């Protein structure tokens, strides 16, 4: 294992200390238990958004804390859900009296820990709404699985709902916007290489020199198919077909196209992916109204990418364009 770390058990804390010093104008970091809040929290009268998940996906979620996006984020150990005491402390710290939304990615551990946290918060009189993100089309959604995983749509939900909350919209409305974005977004990922969890010390899975995994999850969960490396045009066509046919996205639809790097893929390749995606969508008669290209929901040093499409309404577009000022996403300010 080659990593820029001191000791595996110190990675999360030392990264938080770095973030705190780098972005002292935007965020405050708490260490016992771990949580990050926007520097002006709690914002009185505003619905607050709290998310969280395992570390190793940076900038998500801590990098999305700030005006126009999340009020708080709870980082767990690498690839391990945070715990209810973190979520409870974060919820209390940002509650401005208008209620708190928990944005939960659909993983068994995250769901259970957030469920316990919501029970604790509600027992103390805080109005908590939980919304589940499950946009990964690689997983069959059935009674016989844990359901689809929450991936790229999480970033879009946090941005769009964050803008809605900033406008002073009430709890139910902001929660409905989260659910509506989730319902109109679909994603799929792929890996060129595995990643190594610092505490494990060896790659999460083995992938041959000439092999790729289509449909990979952000913790290295298996996808739909392991196949030989092929030109990016074919890879993008396979991923985009699965996404477009799932919702489905139809001729005349206007979408936000999000090409995300998994952590170890350079921006130049992400632009190549975007170029292929644009060609594909043009062929399907789908227009790209907005785009986001970069590494925003990563899987440590995994090489690969994910594609997320969100069917845009005028309201989604307006909320997407609204100002945001966080360590990981910043415009309009």
């Amino acid at each position, binding site marked *: 294992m080659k990593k820029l770390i001191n000791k595996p058990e110190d990675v999360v804390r030392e990264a938080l200390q770095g973030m705190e010093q780098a972005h002292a104008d935007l965020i405050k970091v708490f260490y016992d238990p771990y949580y990050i809040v926007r520097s002006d929290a709690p914002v009185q009268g505003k619905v607050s958004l709290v998310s969280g998940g395992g570390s190793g996906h940076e900038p998500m979620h801590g990098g999305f804390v700030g005006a126009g996006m999340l009020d708080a984020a709870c980082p767990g*150990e690498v690839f*391990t*859900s945070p*715990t209810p005491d973190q979520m409870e402390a974060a919820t209390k710290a940002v509650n401005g009296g208008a209620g708190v939304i928990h944005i939960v990615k659909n993983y068994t551990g995250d769901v259970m*820990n957030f469920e316990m946290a919501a029970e604790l918060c509600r027992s103390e009189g805080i109005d908590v709404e939980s919304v589940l993100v499950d946009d990964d089309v690689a997983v069959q959604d059935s009674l*016989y699985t844990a359901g689809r995983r929450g991936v790229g749509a999480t970033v879009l939900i946090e941005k769009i709902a964050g803008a809605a909350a900033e406008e002073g919209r009430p709890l139910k409305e902001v929660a409905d916007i989260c659910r509506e974005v989730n319902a109109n977004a679909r994603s799929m990922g792929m890996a060129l290489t595995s990643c190594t969890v610092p*505490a*494990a010390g060896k790659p*999460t899975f083995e992938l041959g020199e000439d092999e790729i995994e289509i449909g990979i999850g952000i913790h290295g969960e*298996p996808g739909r198919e392991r196949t030989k490396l092929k030109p990016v045009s074919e890879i993008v066509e396979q991923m985009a077909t699965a996404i477009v046919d799932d919702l489905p996205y139809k001729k005349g639809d206007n979408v936000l196209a999000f090409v995300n790097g998994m952590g170890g893929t350079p921006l130049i390749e992400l632009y190549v992916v975007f170029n292929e995606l644009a060609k594909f969508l043009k062929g399907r008669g789908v227009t790209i109204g907005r785009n986001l290209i970069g590494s925003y929901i990563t899987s440590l040093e995994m090489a690969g990418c994910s594609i997320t499409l969100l069917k845009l309404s005028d309201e989604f577009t307006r909320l997407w364009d609204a100002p945001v000022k966080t360590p990981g996403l910043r415009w309009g300010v």
Partner: protein
Amino acid sequence: MSVGYDDVVRMIRAFAATVAEQKEYLTELDSAIGDADHGINMDRGMKAVLAKIDGQPPTDVGALLKTVGMTLVSTVGGAGGPLYGTLFLQLGTATAGKETLEASDWAAALDAAVTGVQARGKAELEDKTMIDALIPARDAYHQALEEGATFTDALRRSAAAAEDGVKATVPLVARKGRASYLGERSAGHQDPGATSSWLLLKTIADTWAGSD
């Protein structure tokens, strides 16, 4: 004869030692069908439990087990935190205020623990989860008592049933948790959560042997 407060402390220490010893094994099982952190997470949790109970004055059995549960909830994370946390919290709630445990107290505690874990994780038998070790263990314990077995013999039979339950997870296709993403590919692997549950029940049977 019965199990006293010190026996419960001994059992918790023994379980922490077992988890530390089996850390790599549990993580290896988890890497086949999960995310390769079960042993690491449980070990972190049980080490935190030891630090917690070392630093606090003796309480009663119920309060002790609840402390274990709360500590696991706040240190393990993942799915293991809420599930093992709930298991110990329920053991503690069912034995609240008790200085010693009789065979019938443990029957009630096991019932509460299994019910709590099922309510939290929503798993059924044969979903390839810790429930596949816990339900057979609970049922075997009850059956042993009905047949007039001693406390320690019932614990031994309960641990044996858990072990059989663990082995029976191998051919199953997972329907809950991260392993369910694998679908058919999850068959042929032993469930790590069921394995750690069996290790707990085995530790209990071993440490409390001779309590009657």
